[in-house]
């Protein structure tokens, strides 16, 4: 919810020559060195890499089947057999967490992919053509912005029903305004630069100019936005699942695990503490990485 605010702040910040410079720097790989020299960003990167590794290798790493539990072992605290204890159906928490990481990563990647595709196209067309195209598309964005992000997502899920695909659609659409505005802002700055004018003068088509010359200029700010978005998407998706409007049982997902554990909160606090801690750590990781990327790619965009 709140990293959305940061995105919105970022959308007002970029200035064209800086992004162009940043894009060139990015090519030289200098940004990576600067990123790794920043201790906070490096910590973020480590968290994100671990999260991705656990999510992709869940089948290999997981000590138990995340779907099968023994009722005789329900709601146990941490023990040598179950390092993080068991849930209300006696399922191993480590196994649920690892497979939950996979669900979360799948949702995050699909949502970001969808939102980036839609938002970039939207902002690119809007900023490049300007005029009434820009006016119309920005008015539509204004309408979307009238709905607080998470509520827009909740409403879309309310209409379409819960489930994997609909969460992606709902959070993706809720993420669209921020990304479209960000891209449009960058494109407005790039549009007037000489190399774009030159491309137009030699008769390049609009599509070719947009994708070959304008799009690369948006990569640096979009990388930053995508990393921060990964954080907010995880928060939104787990909130939807917590409300029972996201990933449906028995699929393991961190928000859904919290929702299950809530009824036994006071008797078995470990079951509510652990999934929330996992969400927080991963979101911190993506936020640290996003902040670090912003500083590394374009110091002027620092919030």
């Amino acid at each position, binding site marked *: 919810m709140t990293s959305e605010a940061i995105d919105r702040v970022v959308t007002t910040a970029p200035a064209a020559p800086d992004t162009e410079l940043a894009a060139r720097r990015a090519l030289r790989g200098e940004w990576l060195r600067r990123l790794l020299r920043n201790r906070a960003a490096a910590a973020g990167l480590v968290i994100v890499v671990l999260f991705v590794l656990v999510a992709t290798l869940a089948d290999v790493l997981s000590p138990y089947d995340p779907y099968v539990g023994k009722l005789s072992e329900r709601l146990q605290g941490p023990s040598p057999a179950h390092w993080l204890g068991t849930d209300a159906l006696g399922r191993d928490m480590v196994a649920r967490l690892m497979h939950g990481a996979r669900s979360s990563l799948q949702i995050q990647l699909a949502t970001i992919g969808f939102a980036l595709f839609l938002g970039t196209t939207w902002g690119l067309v809007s900023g490049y053509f300007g005029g009434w195209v820009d006016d119309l598309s920005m008015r539509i964005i204004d309408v979307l912005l009238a709905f607080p992000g*998470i509520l827009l997502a909740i409403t879309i899920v309310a209409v379409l029903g819960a489930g994997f695909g609909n969460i992606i659609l709902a959070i993706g659409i809720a993420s669209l305004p921020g990304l479209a505005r960000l891209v449009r802002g960058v494109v407005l700055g790039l549009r007037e630069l000489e190399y774009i004018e030159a491309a137009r003068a030699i008769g390049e088509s609009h599509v070719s100019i947009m994708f070959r010359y304008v799009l690369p200029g948006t990569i640096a700010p979009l990388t930053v936005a995508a990393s921060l978005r990964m954080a907010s998407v995880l928060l939104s998706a787990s909130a939807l699942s917590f409300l*029972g409007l996201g990933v449906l049982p028995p699929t393991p997902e961190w928000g859904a695990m919290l929702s299950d554990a809530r009824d036994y909160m006071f008797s078995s606090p470990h079951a509510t503490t652990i999934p929330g801690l996992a969400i927080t750590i991963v979101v911190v990781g993506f936020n640290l990485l996003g902040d670090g990327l912003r500083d590394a790619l374009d110091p002027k965009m620092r919030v």
Partner: protein
Amino acid sequence: MLRYTLRRLVQLVPVLIGVSIMTFAILHAIPGDPIAVMAPADASEEDIAGLRAEFGLDQPLPIQYLKYVGNAVQGNLGRSLRTRDPVAETLWRRLQFTIQLTIASVVLGVILGVVLGVVAATHHNTWIDNTIMVTSLTLLSVPGFWLSLMLLLLFAGTLRWLPSGGTGGPQHLVLPVIVISHGAAAVIARFTRSSMLEVIRQDYIRTARANGIPERLVVYRHALRNALNPVITIVGLQFGFLLGGSAIVETIFALPGIGRLMVNAIYTRDYPVIQGGILFIALTFVLVNLLTDLVYAIVNPRIRYS
């Protein structure tokens, strides 16, 4: 200022039309026959026919839309499918509670955020600054629903200092307000800090210092005033996020706000309530943003003439 206000009001018109189209579309975006989805499982043929007539779904779309807008303008948003109460009245009552909760959270968020932001900026690159920045980033990253459960565990469970939910006295609102404001406090702290750092570098601050004005006055009278200008816009935006966040917090703490009403309406497929709820919240958010822009224009005259 009058011209600026009028211009902003005119700009609202397309937004309001768009919002009305989107809320209208909710009913039509339901996959399949919306009446079949909405009707209770034991509904008779007549009940279903009655519902169909109530929603006027047999008429052409433009007519349906105009009727919807006409009714909405007169404060008629239909009746709840479950309680049969007029939706607008219920929503209005619930919205008042949520707005109170949100205002209390905004106030707490602004106070905490500005204080932390100023302290961080005036101690730039010291351990104080680092601690505040790490804390605010962590607060930004904690899911509100989990923070709610952890606070409940501690203050309602272990310590037994505060009630675990429901309404009664102000003690019932302590935890919800803390949870709703935590993200806003973090965002405002980060924003105030960077805004302060920018202002402190300016020439007039150096001049003020060179003139021997005490550091305290330089910070609070000269720097903070200008640094807070951009923070105003963030506060307006945050109001909307807090309204959205209230849906989850109200559900956890069993509070009688519009957010919980909507979540419950979603569980029971009470579409008139969902439709009206999202309309009410969008209108509130639009209004708050308008007010924010106007306040911003008052304190920052350059905006009025751009």
